[in-house]
């Protein structure tokens, strides 16, 4: 066990953990930030996606020690001042979910993609999202939602 500090959604959390513990487990089990989901434990489904310095990573295969000194953003930190992010709004508008378990990972990845490339085409979105599984099969809606969100993000600094 070592004492470390991680920065999540703008808040510093001093924690006492095994540095090899997965970031996913630390977020969920130590900090009670349960919006980030476990799906497979081997970076195959994308449910555990969070941003590290704006880059999407799979927190289930990332040791917490690797996140020290970086800014971590989870689904709980995507809405700002209780204003939903355009990607979150679009998921609601389009109804781009069924059970909603994959939704946080999809949204976090989508936010990272559209910040980089708001004009992403359907094909580019599908390619960027290939590492995410929606077992309910809402893929077409997720693409529609991300395209809509991209439109509203164009020219704006998110």
């Amino acid at each position: 066990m070592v004492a470390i500090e991680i920065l999540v959604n703008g808040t510093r959390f001093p924690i006492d953990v095994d540095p090899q513990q997965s970031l996913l487990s630390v977020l969920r089990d130590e900090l009670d930030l349960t919006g980030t989901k476990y799906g497979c434990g081997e970076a195959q489904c994308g449910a555990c996606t969070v941003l590290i310095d704006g880059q999407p990573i799979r927190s289930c295969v990332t040791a917490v020690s690797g996140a020290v000194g970086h800014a971590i953003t989870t689904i709980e930190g995507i809405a700002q001042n209780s204003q939903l992010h355009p990607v979150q709004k679009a998921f609601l508008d389009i109804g781009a979910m069924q059970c909603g378990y994959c939704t946080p990972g999809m949204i976090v990845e989508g936010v990272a993609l559209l910040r980089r490339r708001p004009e992403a085409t359907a094909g580019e979105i599908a390619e960027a999202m290939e590492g995410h599984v929606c077992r309910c099969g809402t893929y077409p809606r997720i693409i529609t939602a991300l395209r809509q969100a991209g439109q509203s993000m164009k020219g704006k600094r998110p």
Partner: protein
Amino acid sequence: MSGVDRREFLQLAGGVIVLLTAPPIFGQESGRRTGGQAVPQDLSAWLNIAEDGSITIYTGKVEVGQNARTSLTQAAADELHAPMESIRLIMGDTDLTPYDMGTFGSRTTPTMVPQIRRAAATAREMLQDLAARQWSIDRAAVIIGDGRAMDPHTNRSITFGALTKGQKLVRTVRHDESITSPEKWTVAGRSAPKVNGADFVTGKHRFSTDITRPGMWYGRVLRVPAFGATLASLDTTAADAMGGVAVVREGSFAGVAAARAPLAASALAALKPSWSTTPQPSNNATIFNDLKKLTTNELGGRTEGAHFGSLLDGMADAVYKLERSYTVAYIAHVPLEPRAAVAEWNNGKLTVWTGTQRPFAVRSELAEAFHISEEKVRVIVPDTGSGYGGKHTGECAIEAARLAKGSGHPVKVVWTREEELTWAYFRPAGVIDVRSGVDKDGKLLAWEFHNYNSGPAAIRTPYEVQNQHIEYHACNSPLRQGSYRGLAATANHFAREVHMDELAAAAKIDPLEMRRRNLKDARLRAVLDAAAERFGWGKAKNAGIACGVEKGGYTATCAEVRIDSSGGVHVTRLVSAFECGAIVNPDHLRNQIEGALMMGIGGALFESVAFQDGKILTDRLSKYRVPRFSDMPQIDVVTIDRKDISSAGAGETPIVGVAPSVAGAIFAATGVRIHALPMVPRGLERTAPQS
């Protein structure tokens, strides 16, 4: 529910106690399941109006992504004449909601929607009475609307809350209470967004996996290395020495719990078990030969088959005759939220939060496992990360409760993906033998159909044929098997519809025309024609078509495929026409149909559980392929709204047409007829036999 079809279960359960003894399961537990309690008639069991006017509806159904929470809220709002926002549903909580057999078989829409409507209509009439009494006017003069009672003559109005003053609503919900017909719906029949959608896009919603309790520990369960293995001995010395770890051993069960998740994982790894193993029959290479040797007489062909006319006469008259065998592999549900439970004991009372489709059955399992009465057990089902028929049982709940009892702490158990892919039950594998004959015009004269193991759902043919023998043969499955979205309807439609295509090819008739010639059912013909028209049947190349009816839903699917240079098969377009009576929520219906099509692609093309010597080889997501973005075709959904027909459920049936329509498209593109699901797990050229 090994070998027992859902429909059979429902038939059995009509007012009688059903005892289903689970097959022996190794390394996990599953108890007896009971069902068949009476539906309560007191209004207060279903509906409450608080003093502030907020309305609570209670239902034992659960939300697993099918958006029943939304459709039931719409039904209540419609019937109560109250805004959706004023209504909250409590679902799947055995202490608070009326008994319910479970959320399966597409039964929520045909049974729970009318039940909620009857309760809400009863409440509305009661509110009308209360207002009439308060104002001393005739009850017929009271109008109920927008969450208020109004007197149009004086323009006075009163809120529901002020009328009931938060008191319990004492009235009987009559089973023949009249409810609003679909033409007069104002809230239902329209698209309404997922009622608690914002909680999902913000990460706020707590699934079972996200529940925490004060003092909660994390539990892990020791799994046997293979089906048929048992724990011979267990050395817990190292785990015991770790400190802060509870090692719990009871009969065949062994598990650990600790205050922190990594410690529980280390303690599990520190257990030193020795196993005794027994040889296990079959593997995924020989399963289809083995199943026919594993038949039981238990349920074979008893109620689901059809026997009439004379096959002998029919075959004698036939111009084209065909005999084919079709197979379907075991497949896994892969709900993205794995099985999970948090269990807490308080003064002998057990509370478990768990994602299950059958909260009351899980309550029974828990009561039995711990030898306590059902009143001492509360099962709460948070809106769950999907099920697809895969979450009917309570093994994870029992595991968490056992560890909670042994450790003296509330305990959370979340199955790993490996546990989920190994120890959850599967959609049954099956063999279907079909023998048939048609006249020179393609009219069916004889139809013989035997399904081994995969199940009797949708086993009967919707086509007109005078001479038929249809039979389901139950088998002792070497793997644990159970319910799945659409159940055997997918297997039976695959065999039946591909066979129809083969007969059409033999008689040189277009597949659509072949179906039309043999179909009388107007509702089925309507969806068939609608799908064909939208798809552009006859113009599109590499195209296949299939249709069917199941659980009150009528479906037709057209598929188009592209074969790449390495034999990879890509479904490029799917058109689905669906009719399930009056549509409750058009957008959510479309969402279900789209999802079923997407899911169906997996079972059609590549999903398959591999196993050998009692071990599941496809025990990780990296070894078990599910449909991804790159598998997504262009999807076009045609819905037919029949306001004159009661609504049927829609979560399952749209899946059944995918595999056979894709099979037809592959044949059109390549001349290769495939008789096995999955059709192309490793691409076309290497796996497909030439027909």
